[in-house]
């Protein structure tokens, strides 16, 4: 049985590259943290707290219009590989997987809505984490989806709420709105022109922060950055979402300018790097994941600059997800040793590039330095 069949788009709708600026902004995520009255949370939650929270949540699902008909996966009941796939698809956090080498905690679960790209993690650091993950830059839309589900849940469940502090959370950095909105961006132009540090400092001054691919504590890989609001208290959700939206649009503008500067001042080397990255991905027989991400960044830049016509954002997004270890194991139908994993990864990338991206139109020596228009 495949647990993913009951999840809309298998939880991969955000790969479709449909939102605004989808080549630069891979995805938008909005999440809120909610806790129930009368139960300890996070590190203080005992097994009976967690089980009671899951029970309450389960019964609210039956009564809520927006949750009924969805799919609830209890983490201890799904296979280790499925759990890792959920994590690699960014549908559950590392926390929900449990301690390295041991089973996830009883009561931890994730629920997927049947109709909208929204899920609820149960018994993470907070009792409930509602998140919406969508493609491209769509902050308001993602917030609205989460907001509606929050209203539905709040009608059924007694949330821990304080008239001064707002929604109470385990960590004081989340209290108030409990909302963290984040935008996952590809910023090679700013990195190559060394303007990235300044851009990130600017974000800091606006009360925003940045992280790597998998959220808190993870490193920046392949020029991918996750920009999110730092402040959760003292401002309304709409205000925070709109503030982030404005800042992200500013960063996109700077990124586009940086890319033009690269073409103007270093076209030869930029093109060479892009084609080398493409060539490596197209023909390599072994690829580590970080190495892949670095080359993928070059190819993605080439596609955005229309130097590699024929490639689609969707194909590149897909490569990022399906070349992670648990996904490769799922495809192979068995566990893979790291070096085997690297070979499977390279083979997957070759296949996608061979079938989904014909760049031959640009690969004509007689074209010299000028890239042809996208057909």
């Amino acid at each position, binding site marked *: 049985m495949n647990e993913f069949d009951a999840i809309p788009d298998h939880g991969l709708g955000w790969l479709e590259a449909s939102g605004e600026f989808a080549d630069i902004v891979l995805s938008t995520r909005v999440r809120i943290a909610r806790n129930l009255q009368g139960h300890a949370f996070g590190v203080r939650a005992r097994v009976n707290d967690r089980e009671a929270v899951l029970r309450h949540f389960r019964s609210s699902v039956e009564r809520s219009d927006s949750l009924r008909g969805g799919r609830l996966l209890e983490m201890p009941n799904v296979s280790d590989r499925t759990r890792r796939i959920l994590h690699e698809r960014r549908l559950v956090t590392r926390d929900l997987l449990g301690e390295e080498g041991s089973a996830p905690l009883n009561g931890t679960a994730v629920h997927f809505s049947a109709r909208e790209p929204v899920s609820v993690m149960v018994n993470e650091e907070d009792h409930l984490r509602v998140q919406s993950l969508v493609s491209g830059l769509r902050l308001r839309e993602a917030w609205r989806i989460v907001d509606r589900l929050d209203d539905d849940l709040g009608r059924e469940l007694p949330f821990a709420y304080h008239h001064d502090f707002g929604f109470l959370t385990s960590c004081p950095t989340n209290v108030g709105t409990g909302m963290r909105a984040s935008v996952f961006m590809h910023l090679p132009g700013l990195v190559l022109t060394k303007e990235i540090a300044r851009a990130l400092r600017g974000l800091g001054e606006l009360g925003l922060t940045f992280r790597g691919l998998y959220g808190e504590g993870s490193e920046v890989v392949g020029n991918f950055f996750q920009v999110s609001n730092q*402040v959760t208290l003292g401002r309304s959700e709409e205000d925070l979402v709109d503030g982030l939206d404005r800042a992200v649009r500013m960063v996109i503008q700077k990124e586009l300018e940086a890319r033009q500067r690269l073409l103007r001042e270093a076209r030869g080397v930029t093109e060479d790097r892009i084609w080398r990255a493409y060539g490596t991905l197209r023909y390599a027989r072994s690829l580590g994941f970080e190495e892949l991400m670095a080359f993928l960044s070059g190819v993605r830049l080439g596609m955005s600059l229309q130097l590699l016509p024929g490639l689609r954002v969707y194909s590149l997004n897909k490569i990022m997800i399906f070349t992670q270890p648990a996904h490769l194991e799922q495809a192979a139908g068995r566990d893979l040793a790291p070096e085997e994993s690297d070979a499977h990864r390279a083979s997957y990338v070759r296949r996608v590039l061979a079938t989904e991206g014909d760049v031959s139109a640009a690969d004509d020596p007689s074209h010299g330095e000028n890239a042809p228009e996208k057909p």
Partner: protein
Amino acid sequence: MICEKCGATGAVVHLTQIVDNQISTYHLCERCAAEKGLESAPTAADFPLMDVIAQMAEASPPDTSVTGSECAFCGLTWRDFRKTGRLGCPHCWETFGGEITRLLRRIHGAARHAGKVYLPPDPSASEMEKRLDGLRLRLERAVQSEDFERAAELRDQIRSLEPA
């Protein structure tokens, strides 16, 4: 990847430079990068919550009536909180209220919620009124920011809650 300069330690700084139309990339360990006068490349900017908590303790004497107490519901002490940066239950927020308020001002620059007003199941009349006030405020903001789809939704919500 090993540092290109010393060849001993793992490279953590990956520098890409464009000089005279030439792009070159260096992979260096933290120490060699520092010797070259390079700032460490941006990795994850973790929120320095623990630093803030530590600074607070140094900056001004904490309220001992708060820091000496223990949450009656979950048993968390202020010392536990200082170790993990995590509270244990909704009651902790009341128990450590004074110190928490100081901490919130440092983290968020504010200590008062300005977002959604929550309406519990089976609300009292005053809770209902607070919720309506909150929704009206959000409606006003939605109209101001020309988010009309949102405004329409909020208007419907207000209508459904208003006494007939």
